[in-house]
């Protein structure tokens, strides 16, 4: 588990992180969401032990990360622009990383290079941006670490590659208890990968929740009420977060379990009633609007 407690970091007059408390549990894919300047990269760098926090703590498995050789053997950080040794090939990089990370799996790295169709003897300087991202992921996946921190690594990957990586993550999570942490400023890019989402904004944590739990805890109901009194009863008896009316058709996002919602609506006369699946986007909008924040800016059409 990666745990940050009241973590703060400033760069001059700019407060990048302001006393954030965040927990990244093992065995899940954690998505770190936020706009540019929210503090995602800063958090990841603190978690990777690159930066030293001004206040608070950041620990991996209960041990502080900063300048801790043993803990850092369990963490592999992939920044947005991964640095490759000058004039090197993928083979050279694998050899280098293998010398640094004691559990680096050379066989796996070669397999993954084949899988992604990357020539191990070709100069990396000639790779495209997407190929470089793939290579950085290969190095990370082969490193044998327990935590893989990816800073906007998925931004720019094509959907096929993204799916491939997702399945690789799943396999690694089963095989060696890998915990990937992926940051992005695009919800749609990571919604089908992550299990848990943390939302940073202006150096603070807006929310941090398990996606399934979020989905389980929110219901989207479409119904036509028999009478206005039934409508009032419905709105007053349930925690309606968002509602929309089109003629007689009401669409509501209600906080509560499906069972509770169904039981409650049994007591209300409706002409039409249906519980619909919620997308992550809708969940987010609901959750963040409830705290007065417009999350639509994360959703790129």
């Amino acid at each position, binding site marked *: 588990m990666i745990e940050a407690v009241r973590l703060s970091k400033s760069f001059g007059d700019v407060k990048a992180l302001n006393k954030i408390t965040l927990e990244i549990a093992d065995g899940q894919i954690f998505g770190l969401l936020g706009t540019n300047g929210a503090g995602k990269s800063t958090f990841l760098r603190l978690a990777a032990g690159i930066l030293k926090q001004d206040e608070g703590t950041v620990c991996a498995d209960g041990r502080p990360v900063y300048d801790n050789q043993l803990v*850092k053997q369990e963490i592999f950080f992939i920044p947005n622009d991964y640095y490759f040794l000058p004039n090197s090939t993928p083979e050279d990089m694998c050899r280098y990383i293998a010398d640094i990370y004691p559990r680096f799996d050379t066989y796996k790295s070669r397999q993954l290079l084949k899988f992604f169709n990357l020539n191990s003897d070709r100069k990396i300087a000639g790779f495209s941006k997407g190929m470089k991202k793939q290579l950085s992921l290969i190095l990370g996946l082969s490193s044998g670490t327990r935590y893989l921190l990816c800073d906007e690594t998925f931004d720019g990957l094509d959907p096929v590659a993204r799916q491939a990586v997702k399945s690789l993550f799943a396999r690694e999570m089963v095989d060696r208890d890998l915990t990937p942490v992926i940051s992005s400023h695009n919800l749609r890019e990571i919604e089908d990968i992550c299990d848990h989402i943390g939302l940073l904004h202006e150096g603070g944590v807006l929310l941090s929740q398990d996606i399934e739990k979020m989905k389980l805890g929110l219901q989207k109901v479409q119904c036509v009420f028999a009478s206005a009194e039934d409508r009032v009863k419905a709105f007053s008896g349930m925690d309606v977060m968002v509602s929309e009316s089109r003629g007689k058709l009401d669409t509501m996002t209600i906080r509560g379990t499906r069972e509770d919602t169904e039981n409650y609506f049994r007591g209300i006369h409706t002409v039409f009633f249906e519980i619909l699946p919620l997308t992550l986007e809708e969940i987010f909008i609901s959750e963040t609007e409830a705290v007065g924040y417009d999350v639509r800016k994360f959703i790129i059409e």
Partner: protein
Amino acid sequence: MSNSEQKSFYTFGKIQKHIISRRIWLAGLMTLYFILYYPVAVAMQITRSNQSGMMRSLSTEMLRNDRLSLISAWMGMRSSFLFVIVFLGILAGIQEFSYLFSSDKIDFYESQPLSRKARFGNLYLNGILLFSIPLIVNWGLAVLISIATNSLNAITLEELLYQLFRILLVFLASYSIGILSVMLTGNLIVAVLMSIFLEVFGWLGWYLTVALGSTFYITWAFVNSQAPRGFLLSTLYNTIYPSVYSSMGVMYARYPLMAYELKNMVSSTLPGDFCNIACAVLIGVCDLMLFSRRKMEAAGESVLFRPLRAVIKIIVSVYGGIITALLVLGIFGINNRVGIAAENQLSIYVYVFAGALFMCFLAAGVMQSIYDFNIRRFFGSVWSMLLSGALCLLILGFYHFDLSGYDRWVPSPEKTAYASLVVYDGFPWFNIPYEADSDIASDSPYDTGISPYSTSRGSMINSNDYAENNMRITDLKSLTAIASAGMENMTAAKQSGKTAVVTDAGTNEMAASGWNAKVIYKLKNGKTAARNIRIPYSVDPELMDKVTGQEEYIRSIFPVFLDDSLRNKINKEIQARQIDMSDPEQRTIILNRPGSFRGVTTASEPKLYFYNDADSVTAVCWFYTELSDALREDLLKMSFSDYTQEDALGNLNIEFDDYNGYYLNYEMPVYAGYEKTIKVLEENGIRLASVQEIPFESIVVRRWSETYEEKTYKDANEIRSILDACMQTNSGLWKTDSNWEKSLDVIGQPGEAYYETRSRYEFGDGCSLTLKTDLVPDFVKADFPKE
């Protein structure tokens, strides 16, 4: 080795391998330099020496000595290339830690499971390995080549080993400075500027104090021993100090060092080497601490630590202002010897201070722009700009008004160990090969200790240097009284607002008259202080006698006390030539009388030239040792009052050249009080006729002024009167401005009989005579009335 030790060594080796693979160009550069400097250059020089020596038919021993000289000069402590090591050190330091300038690289390296200490250690060690391995390997090759070609002896090998140690030291110190530059800055260009700043600011600061002193202080004096022996951060200064400030003659001599010379060299370089050791250790520790404290997010910033920015900005600005002020004063030709006339002072100082302030503000603005990478921030942090200007003006004012009391300072005798007094006007000059312990023989069969082109070794020392370094006056009460009088003389002249002293340009506006001298104090705290003074002509003679009559004073200014090497050589020549010293004609060979069988000396013959305004004797003087003994006795009996009460009879010049590297020449006045000396000269046929004895047929007096005037006197009485008013020579000790009449040229024309026994070559145009100021005959005064 335990498993964990094995593992960490294995990891260390792998990390080193990876680092070196990314430092190929640096390793290549260093390797190439050392290959060329050591085995290639040594082989080439040895080959050339052998070829050249064979062409000159040098003996085997001389050939070997030449090779020894080459090796010693090229690879030893007199090598001129230590500044390259400084450059390589700084380059390596910046290169090793340059990843800190790139955020991408920082992400890559700092996320890796390696502790900061381990990373620092690996990088630090890598730079040292990249330098020391090619150095030691190629140095070793050069030594092997030298041994194989019989070009090395024990002492030279010792010298080479010590120099190798020094090279490593210089590298470590410079390396630490290069790393420090990286730790303090966030990009490559500023790091390079920072390393230059660190190397230079201490040295430059000292140099500016010297420049300010020499510009503003009327009694300013500098002796080499006052130069700092080293600066903590300036490895460059520490390496060049010996060659710039050392008074050791061996620095540029071409022969291998002997044991005592090596010892002296080591002593001379030790303070600088200690500074380098301190730098390597202290700055190295500082580097590690800063590496630990440095924020990784600082990549790209100019100077990392905010307080440091202001300090550097102020230092650079103040330096710039002071340099500008000195330049402006230089443009006006103002220095401590040429003061500013009162009516010009205001305007010149306006230029000086305005120029200084302008440069201060400009430098401060440029620094701020560099810090913020934004030209619009030129006037940012205005307080530091204003502070720089204020400091600059304060410093200039401090020197201008002599707030430290430099021009009034005379040390108390209780705080002074000893002192020396060097007088420049009319004093003996000499250049003597000074052989300290050249007769010390080494037991080594390989240590011949001589160069193939010289029969001797040692430094050439001149009169001023010798007096400065060897005179030990212990009657400090008298000396400081003289010094006080001399300094008051100078400061009074400065305050008069006129030109303080006569310049070389010969300005007539003389406000301070007296004997130009330098006093050098060696204080009990080990420091050296010096002052230029002008001893007033009105100084108390008793005080002067107390100082100038001291044996340590006399022995330090008269060259005859340093002629042991000459006496040895002459004695050897006498034996070799089997000269019969009982035969006057063999003891003395007069050269400049017509009919002399030869007119010049040959190699290794001591030449004596004794002359006054109207007569001269040139001779080979094999009796030199006897003459030297007599001079030494006579000199020890004379002092200031003796010299001021009588005029010199003539000048004695001694010259010796063995045409093989040993050359000696000195000159000094001879007085009637040198009774023994005169006796020895006369016994050996050296007699100088006085001016009054010469039968002049006419005397021409000329005055060069706005109009040229000339008068010829042929009347015997007039000639006699003029001759009676003449000195034997215008040179001599403790002469004053008013001793002789400078406005008149007096040429005596002897008759033809004179040239029967005198050289027409020397006196063919007549004898240039010297009239005493207070004895000029009335008829001459009438003929040449004062203008």
